[in-house]
């Protein structure tokens, strides 16, 4: 298929948002569009947005589900601030998304959903299609339901089910508008619905009908094209953060030559890690759906003691419950990966929204002096290697490690250039095999370099020993209430973690020659910070940008980096937690750009702040 003689405009990037009722299949439409664009060679980034935890009644505002994707012919960093195109399947979808649309953007509406009842449910007093609300936008009205019904009438699907294909109609229309190939989607439909031929037929027919509708109607004067991006050569897949993290755990198990154990209790937005891992039992992966988060971390501690690569994952409320267990693992110096997929808090908060407000909680969320390594993932695809790195540290230093993700990373997706698996590090550590003492085995006899204690697992003759949560005597690990010993052990545990700074890469700074401002971030703000930096540079303003993977310990060059700039800007989706850490550690003044609204930064917010600061 090829386009007709209407205008074909080339864009470097476009942001499209599909929005509809939770039942309208918007996530599917978005994902299909994404995959088609990916295989076409665009760079892209996605941001799904689910209705809040509970199912809302059809047609209401809380029931709206949306999926945003940015595609580009260059390497992009975020799913975009403002959609250029909004697909609105009903009034509620229009209402809750219109304010994000860029000025004069395009709106494709399913007109037939704009009837009295739906308008009322969405809280519209009058019809926005006719009352002037959409003046200034490029509105494309499509009677999607009639057209879909018509299209699928021979498919074998009947009754209300007919309308289920309307997301494919919309997708077909978008495919035409953006000159995307239909084949990948058609193949996917066959693969997915092959066992139900009537559904397969209906969806394929609707897809083609949408495409043809674009082709034949006069509604659209122009079609658009986003050329393939010049991405680094390689094999790509489109991946979400949760999946990448789960795969990272599996990879880490292989790199460590250890069976993987994952103890978890379902919680939004971490559950998908459990789901994904439970599918891969052929890797020897054991998943344990515990009765609660306390049991989840407990089981992982048991598994670590027993010689597994042990991990546990949750989100804020669940991590709070794990605190006492993590403290035990810290005291027993067992390797354990604790994944926190942050969501907006406090308390139950807004479970489906992202936030970065658990950094200080990761640092200090345990009683007593219990410093832990803390790492943060910066984008969906980054989760894979970040997880392997967390495992490396946990094993090498015999310590729990906190690995921070968030809702934005967990559910967002981006193309991931598959790594060369042969290049993955060997992170295995030998179990203790021989007695290191003259009498009983000495479980706290430390390695002189890492200060790690030996990992002796049950089944090893002669190394029988007991661990526990009471303070340990150095070397022997016996219970000790000795003053000097407690001081020594406290210092040793702190030093062991601090020393990891010598085993991680220095912070990389992307700095312009005469930069006076450093922008430093962590976690999921990576994309928006980089994108903002790009825009600022395009304005000809110099700056330096850095992103922290390691929050504890900090890279050894961090202080020097911080002191090299007149101003330090720290954008965070919290009230300034990294700022506090930096200030306390180095007495360096920072400026915070803080947002706690349950949504990522817009690139422009960061851009504006940078420009303002440089100007000042």
């Amino acid at each position, binding site marked *: 298929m090829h386009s007709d003689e209407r205008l074909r405009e080339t864009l470097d990037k476009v942001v499209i948002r599909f929005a509809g009722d939770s039942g309208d299949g918007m996530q599917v439409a978005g994902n299909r569009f994404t995959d088609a664009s990916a295989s076409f060679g665009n760079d892209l980034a996605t941001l799904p947005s689910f209705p809040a935890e509970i199912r809302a009644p059809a047609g209401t505002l809380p029931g709206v589900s949306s999926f945003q994707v940015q595609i580009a012919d260059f390497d992009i960093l975020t799913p975009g601030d403002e959609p250029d195109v909004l697909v609105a399947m009903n009034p509620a979808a229009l209402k809750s998304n219109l304010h994000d649309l860029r000025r004069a953007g395009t709106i494709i509406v399913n007109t037939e959903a704009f009837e009295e009842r739906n308008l009322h449910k969405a809280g519209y007093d009058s019809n926005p299609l006719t009352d002037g609300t959409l003046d200034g936008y490029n509105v494309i009205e499509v009677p999607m339901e009639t057209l879909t019904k018509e299209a699928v009438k021979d498919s074998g699907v009947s009754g209300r089910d007919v309308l289920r294909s309307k997301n494919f109609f919309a997708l077909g229309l978008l495919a035409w508008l953006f000159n995307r190939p239909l084949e990948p989607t058609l193949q996917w439909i066959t693969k997915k619905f092959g066992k139900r031929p009537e559904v397969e037929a209906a969806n394929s027919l609707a897809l083609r009908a949408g495409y043809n509708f674009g082709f034949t109607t006069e509604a659209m004067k122009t079609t658009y094209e986003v050329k393939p991006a010049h991405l680094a050569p390689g094999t*790509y*897949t489109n991946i979400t953060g949760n*999946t990448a993290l789960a795969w990272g755990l599996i990879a880490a198990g292989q790199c460590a030559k250890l069976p993987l154990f994952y103890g978890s209790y379902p919680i939004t937005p971490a559950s998908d890690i459990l789901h994904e891992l439970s599918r891969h039992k*052929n890797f020897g992966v054991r998943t344990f759906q515990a009765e609660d988060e306390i*049991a989840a971390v*407990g089981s992982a501690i048991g598994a670590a003691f027993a010689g597994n690569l042990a991990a546990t994952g949750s989100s804020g409320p669940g991590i709070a419950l794990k605190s006492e267990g993590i403290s035990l693992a810290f005291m027993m110096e067992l390797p354990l990966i604790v994944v926190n997929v942050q969501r907006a808090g406090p308390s139950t908060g807004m479970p489906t929204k992202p936030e970065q407000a658990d950094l200080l909680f990761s640092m200090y969320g345990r009683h007593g002096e219990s410093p832990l390594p803390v790492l943060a993932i910066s984008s969906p695809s980054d989760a894979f290697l970040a997880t392997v790195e967390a495992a490396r540290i946990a094993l090498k230093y015999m310590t729990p490690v906190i690995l921070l993700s968030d809702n934005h990373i967990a559910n967002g997706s981006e193309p991931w250039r*598959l790594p060369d698996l042969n290049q993955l590090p060997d992170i295995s550590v030998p179990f203790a095999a021989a007695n290191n003492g003259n009498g009983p085995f000495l479980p706290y006899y430390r390695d002189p370099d890492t200060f790690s204690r030996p990992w002796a697992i049950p089944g090893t003759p002669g190394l029988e020993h*007991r661990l526990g949560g009471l303070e340990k005597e150095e070397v022997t690990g016996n219970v000790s209430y000795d003053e000097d010993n407690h001081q020594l052990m406290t210092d040793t545990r702190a030093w062991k973690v601090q020393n990891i700074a010598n085993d991680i890469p220095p912070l990389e700074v992307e700095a312009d020659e005469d930069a006076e401002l450093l922008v430093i971030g962590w976690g999921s703000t990576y994309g928006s910070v980089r994108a903002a930096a790009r825009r600022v540079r395009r304005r000809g303003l110099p700056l330096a940008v850095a992103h922290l993977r390691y929050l504890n310990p900090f890279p050894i060059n961090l202080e020097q980096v911080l002191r090299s700039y007149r101003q330090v800007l720290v954008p965070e989706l919290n009230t300034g937690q990294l700022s506090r850490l930096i200030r306390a550690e180095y007495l360096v003044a920072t400026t915070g750009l803080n947002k706690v609204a349950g949504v990522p930064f817009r690139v422009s917010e960061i851009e504006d702040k940078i420009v303002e600061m440089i100007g000042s």
Partner: protein
Amino acid sequence: MTLEYTRADFQTDQEVRWCPGCGDYTILASVQAFMADLGLEREKIVFVSGIGCSSRFPYYMNTYGMHSIHGRAPAIATGIAASRPDLSVWVVTGDGDALSIGGNHLIHSLRRNVNIKILLFNNQIYGLTKGQYSPTSEVGKATKSSPMGSIDYPFNPVSLALGAEASFVARTIDMDRTHTTEMLRRAHEHPGAAFMEIYQNCNVFNDKAFIELTGKQERDHNRIFLEHGKPIVFGPDSEKAVILDEGRARVVDRSEVAAEQILVHDEKAEDPSVAFALSRLSHGPHGPTPLGVLRDAPRTTYDGALQHQLVEAQAKRGPGELDRLIRSLGTWEVR
């Protein structure tokens, strides 16, 4: 492989630190001797405990061990047992540790039937924290935290375990080392979760709580030793019996009932109703109290089923290949 061990092989170099006269000493001796006798490789054994006097236990067992945190031993033991079917995993816990803070993990490990052996040292008091009432203390008990008497109705640990779908439930008493040893053996032999309540005297904060079962005068009148397949009779001259009376267990004079009326103990019954009825004979314990194996009805174990799924997954899909995994969502090439 069965090894030649003596009790000393299971002792550690750590000084045992319970109050003189504490029932924990006796249980420790029983367990050490049992382990030596059993001859399982020491390194294949793991003892996990929570916090409490009783939970110091692992320090005194020369096996692998963990003195973990309050109430969480069953969860930790689950992680060990589920990932290492080759190990023999034991949980030592107290009435506070297992039934108060740890109640949830206890009931879940029982229903899942994880292959762990849970030894609950029930002294009906919080020993370590110096004597508050526990979930097994009797109503009216005056303690530091209940100066006017406890108003909490206690659990019957055996009833609770049965209600939580336990596949093995037994009860014994610290002083009776022979019986304790027999129960340990039975717990060990049972495939899956074994729950064993051990009445344990805390001579400091709750002395003589079990005097009805240990006192020279009383004990023979009150110990009902259950034996599979045998009619339930007890008393110094076996003059008492247990019958089912409209579904409830009742103690009668043996002379009053026909021999066929006496309940024949069936620990293998799939339906736990009769075991439950037996557990209601005494609450506390007061008066005639069943001891022995109340239930031993094996069913699929959690770890067995998990292992099975791993094997099946490998058989069906082959061992996992990372390279295939990361390509499994569809890929495209950029050149």
